[in-house]
């Protein structure tokens, strides 16, 4: 067995033979052309042919994939005609007396390099489009036809990287999945794969060798794993996931677009937990109603120094805008304890779970806090952002957080920067103290969200990192569930909503208990949305009982 790890960019598990994508070999001569006028005519013809092909491809994309993909090829057609691009090709012909092929190569390389050098991930990814367009013109010049799939049975298509038009021109009935050496989650292949619902893994690098051609493989587009001729144990893991996925697919079909409402009409907000802006695609494809927990830690964990306001703003804005008016709850910095970041230079603690972590760091370091709050408020202009503070134990902490917010709002007012004044502020309920003073806390904020992992750890005095606590670490413990009830009653008394954003939210065996307690929102991983929706739609809120609370 050979196991290769890449980056999963389109979910799903499939098995099949690996098939290497073949391109017609292209060698471009740098020799001088005999007749420049003839070269110009050849180039003109190749461009015209390219335009025709792109128009046909746009039509095909419109029918098979959708408007967005069709627009891509229309944009490619605009590139072919672009003045700059054409001028650059003609200049090469006039000045270097080269062949039409070489002129296309020069122009393609120049503009691809220009885009690749831009400080914008979106524009950088467009370099692939220029290369794709250049290749098309070249193929037309040289009469090369790119290889299709010369196989009777469906295959897992392997390539160094696939250009968008290559992806689309392939016979989809023959493709089970994509595996590529290069590429990113932003590349068109990844986007098209997700739209077509085909698993894809990119970034496999040199481990994806052409020797693997024809060998049987399992790929998992979620974990990014490629297993060539898997052993029995690996096989069973992939196989069970494959079966689960088939079940999920059926659920997806029936549950998408449905409301999260019980048989007796109680609404539940089913939101998603995400860790980075890239996860938004999963939220949308699983039909999440909003984002109940956007962990901002990725910004801090992924960098070697404090992330700037601008970096943070972009990340928050992108998520807020992509969710298009649906609520996005962003949790402020929650490091310390199990999440350590070197440049914060936090003191080593005997007992970090009870140490300077999360909101305590923010309140101790107003500058770090201010930067994040500014980014959050600025992003609020682009959607429905809500700000959530973690690890709250006291009312004074919340008041201090709110003062920091007001200060930031006053700054933005003075600078004339747009933001939403009615941005909701909420807190995490994850300490027993916050449960005991929940009524007072509820009067200060717009919502509660229960972090069940920490709430269980602190309520039961069980270290969540320790592996040997086993039966003692019980999130179903009546103490934890009663704490939920106390917090919910306090929230509702103050007229605010309460959700659960810990792992417990997706625990279907507790759904009835949550309904009986009166929880308003459950925030779960995107893949849990539809199974949860199916369960909610089978429930009757009125008949749910508090028996698990044992009181």
């Amino acid at each position, binding site marked *: 067995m050979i196991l290769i790890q890449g980056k999963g960019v389109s979910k799903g598990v499939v098995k099949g033979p690996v098939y290497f994508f073949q391109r017609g070999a292209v060698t471009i001569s740098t020799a001088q052309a005999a007749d420049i006028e003839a070269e110009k005519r050849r180039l003109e013809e190749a461009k015209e042919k390219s335009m025709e092909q792109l128009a046909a491809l746009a039509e095909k994309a419109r029918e098979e994939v959708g408007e967005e993909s069709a*627009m*891509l090829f*229309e*944009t490619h057609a*605009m*590139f072919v005609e*672009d*003045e*700059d*691009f054409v001028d650059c090709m003609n200049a090469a012909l006039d000045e270097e007396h080269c062949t039409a092929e070489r002129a296309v190569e020069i122009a393609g390389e120049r*503009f691809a390099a*220009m*885009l690749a050098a*831009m*400080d*914008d991930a*979106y*524009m950088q990814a*467009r370099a692939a*489009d220029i290369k794709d367009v250049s290749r098309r013109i070249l193929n037309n010049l040289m009469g090369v036809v790119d290889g299709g799939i010369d196989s009777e049975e469906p295959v897992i298509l392997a390539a160094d990287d696939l250009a968008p038009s290559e992806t689309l021109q392939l016979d989809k009935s023959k493709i089970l999945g994509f595996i590529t050496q290069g590429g990113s989650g932003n590349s068109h292949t990844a986007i098209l794969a997700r739209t077509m619902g085909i698993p894809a893994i990119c970034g496999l690098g040199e481990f994806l060798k052409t020797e693997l051609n024809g060998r049987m493989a399992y790929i998992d587009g979620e974990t990014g794993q490629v297993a060539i001729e898997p052993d029995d144990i690996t096989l069973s893991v992939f196989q069970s996931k494959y079966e689960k996925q088939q079940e999920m697919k059926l659920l997806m079909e029936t549950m998408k677009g449905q409301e999260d409402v019980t048989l007796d009409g109680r609404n539940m907000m089913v939101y998603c937990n995400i860790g980075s802006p890239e996860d938004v695609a999963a939220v949308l494809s699983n039909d999440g109603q909003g984002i109940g927990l956007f962990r901002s830690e990725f910004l801090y964990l992924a960098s070697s120094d404090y992330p700037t306001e601008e970096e943070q703003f972009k990340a928050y*804005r*992108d998520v807020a*805008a*992509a969710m298009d008016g649906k609520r996005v709850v962003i949790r402020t910095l929650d490091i310390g304890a199990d999440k350590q970041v070197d440049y914060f230079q936090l003191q080593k603690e005997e007992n970090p779970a009870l140490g300077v972590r999360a909101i305590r760091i923010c309140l101790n370091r107003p500058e770090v806090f201010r930067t994040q709050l500014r980014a959050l408020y600025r992003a609020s202009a*682009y959607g429905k952002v809500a700000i959530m503070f973690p690890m709250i134990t006291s009312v004074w902490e919340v008041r201090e957080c709110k003062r920091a917010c007001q200060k930031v709002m006053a700054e933005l007012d003075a600078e004339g920067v747009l933001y939403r004044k009615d941005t909701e502020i909420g807190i995490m309920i994850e300490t027993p103290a916050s449960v005991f003073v929940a009524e007072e806390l509820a009067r200060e904020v717009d919502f509660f969200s229960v972090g069940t992992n920490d709430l269980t750890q602190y309520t039961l005095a069980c270290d969540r990192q320790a592996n040997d606590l086993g039966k003692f670490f019980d999130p179903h413990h009546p103490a934890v569930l009663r704490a939920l009830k106390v917090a919910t009653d306090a929230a509702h008394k103050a007229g605010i909503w309460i959700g659960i954003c810990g792992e417990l939210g997706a625990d279907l065996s507790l759904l009835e208990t949550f309904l009986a307690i009166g929880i308003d929102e459950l925030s779960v991983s995107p893949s849990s949305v539809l199974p949860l929706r199916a369960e909610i739609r089978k429930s009757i809120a009125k008949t749910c009982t508090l028996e698990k609370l044992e009181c």
Partner: protein
Amino acid sequence: MKQFTYTITDPVGIHARPAGLLVKAIKALESTVTIAKADGKSAAGTKLMALMGLGIKQGETVTVTVEGANEEADAATLEQFFKDNL
């Protein structure tokens, strides 16, 4: 010469597709159009690559200069285009 400024509201800025549409719209006009960023970098309105190369993002303000016999009407058409698409 006619000038107007516009602040981009499209979340991805003047990216490939809108830039393409913009070039198309400008080519349909009689006037010569230049698009400039706040930092002074500018591009001819008929050049797609050059426009994309400006890397104009959401929130940035661009100055659009329209010159020609029909500049008054062309500027109005173009301003509407920005509002509708960018």
